[in-house]
């Protein structure tokens, strides 16, 4: 009888302690699971072509690319659409608009803290582990600089798209639907799920002219390219810069027009 009493305490103690750490453990296991499945899947896929490189990418290239894309995805996701959608629906947006700061800037900077943390806790460790494990598959030189510049621009483009899509929430209540559409389109057309190198010809050309490839494909190509031509680097960064400006302007314009319409209609 006494023992049972103590065991109850032990059990409760275990549950209490677990609550504290479970979230981290579960998240780590979840990511590991993803890595394991990705590893075996692509291993099997490349085995079917006797491990020949396809579209210039070997099995290891593909794996590194996909792992880093996932890590990038982990910190690029800012839940902007949700944030905007919820504050529009709850009416909190009115308070946000009264702030002495442009709404898109306010939203960005209020999230930027989490951003830095995510970069340091997910991307950086993943990058270090991948670099160490693959020993030399990731070149360590000037490309790191290009990569950082490219990531900054990718973040900007991604945020602009998020903001643009979030603005749509002024017109509809369907946050879930809007967000999921944005998410799958970006992940597919940016080369985050399947590297662009594998895309069949006409599709590849189309994707090159869209802004999405500047989010994942551009920085990752710059990072993993072992002997880049200066012209290629310049073209990639130049294209990104162009998209940064275009998307920024589009986002601002759409927001301003939508807001005016909403205030006029008194919605």
């Amino acid at each position, binding site marked *: 009888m006494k023992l049972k009493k103590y065991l109850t305490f032990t059990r409760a103690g275990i549950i209490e302690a677990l609550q504290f750490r479970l979230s981290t453990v579960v998240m780590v296991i979840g990511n590991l*699971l993803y890595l394991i499945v990705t590893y075996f899947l692509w291993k099997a896929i490349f085995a079917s072509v006797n491990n020949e490189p396809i579209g210039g990418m070997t099995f290891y290239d593909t794996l590194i690319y996909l792992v880093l894309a996932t890590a990038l995805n982990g910190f690029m996701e800012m839940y902007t659409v949700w944030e905007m959608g919820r504050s529009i629906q709850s009416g909190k947006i009115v308070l946000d608009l009264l702030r002495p700061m442009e709404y898109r800037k306010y939203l960005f900077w209020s999230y930027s803290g989490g951003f830095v943390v995510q970069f340091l806790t997910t991307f950086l460790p993943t990058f270090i582990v991948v670099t160490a494990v693959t020993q030399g598959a990731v070149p360590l030189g000037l490309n790191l600089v290009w990569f950082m510049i490219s990531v900054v621009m990718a973040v900007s483009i991604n945020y602009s798209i998020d903001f643009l899509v979030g603005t749509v929430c002024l017109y509809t209540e*369907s946050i879930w639907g809007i967000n999921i559409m944005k998410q799958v389109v970006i992940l597919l057309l940016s080369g985050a799920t399947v590297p662009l190198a594998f895309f069949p010809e006409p599709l590849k050309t189309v994707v090159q002219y869209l802004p999405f490839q500047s989010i994942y494909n551009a920085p990752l190509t710059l990072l993993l390219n072992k002997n880049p031509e200066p012209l290629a680097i310049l073209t990639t960064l130049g294209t990104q810069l162009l998209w940064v400006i275009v998307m920024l302007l589009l986002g601002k314009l759409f927001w301003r027009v939508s807001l005016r319409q909403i205030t006029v209609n008194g919605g």
Partner: protein
Amino acid sequence: MKRGLGFYLRIYARILVQDIKSKMSYRADFIISTLGMICTNIAGFVSFWIVFQNFPSVDGWSYYEMLFLYGFSLVSLTPVQCLFDNNWSLRMYVYSGDFIKYCFRPINLFFYYQSEVFDIKGLGQLAFGIGTLVYAWAKLGLPVTALMIVKMIVFLITASLIMIALQNAAAATCFWIQNSFYVLDFVFRFKDYAKYPITIFSPVFRFIFTFLMPIAFIAYYPSLVILHPDEVPLLSWLSPVVGLVFFFLSYKIWMYGAMKYSGTGS
């Protein structure tokens, strides 16, 4: 007063009709959500197709065989999406204490809770999955007999129980731990891994995905019954039993948690 299966089916049908009616009144949201679901499925299919543009097969599985598996997983994942979507809100009800309001009806608590939400957009996935299955079936030249179709339906339904069970159990963790969203999200990601043949994994992970996290029972084992009728492993035949047992266990866990919780929460 007896409340049997017929009673529950009638109640469910009633709630369903009403729920769909009220969802239709938000027409824009309904259309956009359905489009979103369709987009998700198309994107999934396109990435699948792109990979096979470059590679002829995966571990001896041809394009159409893989497609069959893919379609099978989509269909068997539909019930969890359509019928048990309220599991995602459970955490919030428990946290706010509103869960107690489900405890005062003279009908089964689990049923009453789950019946409240029918996620209609899952039907888009069902249509997409069935289309894929039929297409792959035809391309593979599989025979179309009554027996095959019955087998197919039985195995699809029992396979769907696995994911339902996993999700129930994951959702029920909120009765014991706070902020259990990550547990549910963790399990939810299993669905993405269901569409690969388990033979691509090393023996250790084959064991894990069969016995510890039964992902392979969502599509791989049950679909073998149709796909390779000549060499069906024992585990495939067992998959309906596994589905039923898991579902029953998850139901018990859920109910146990609910009873335990409703006592303490204010």
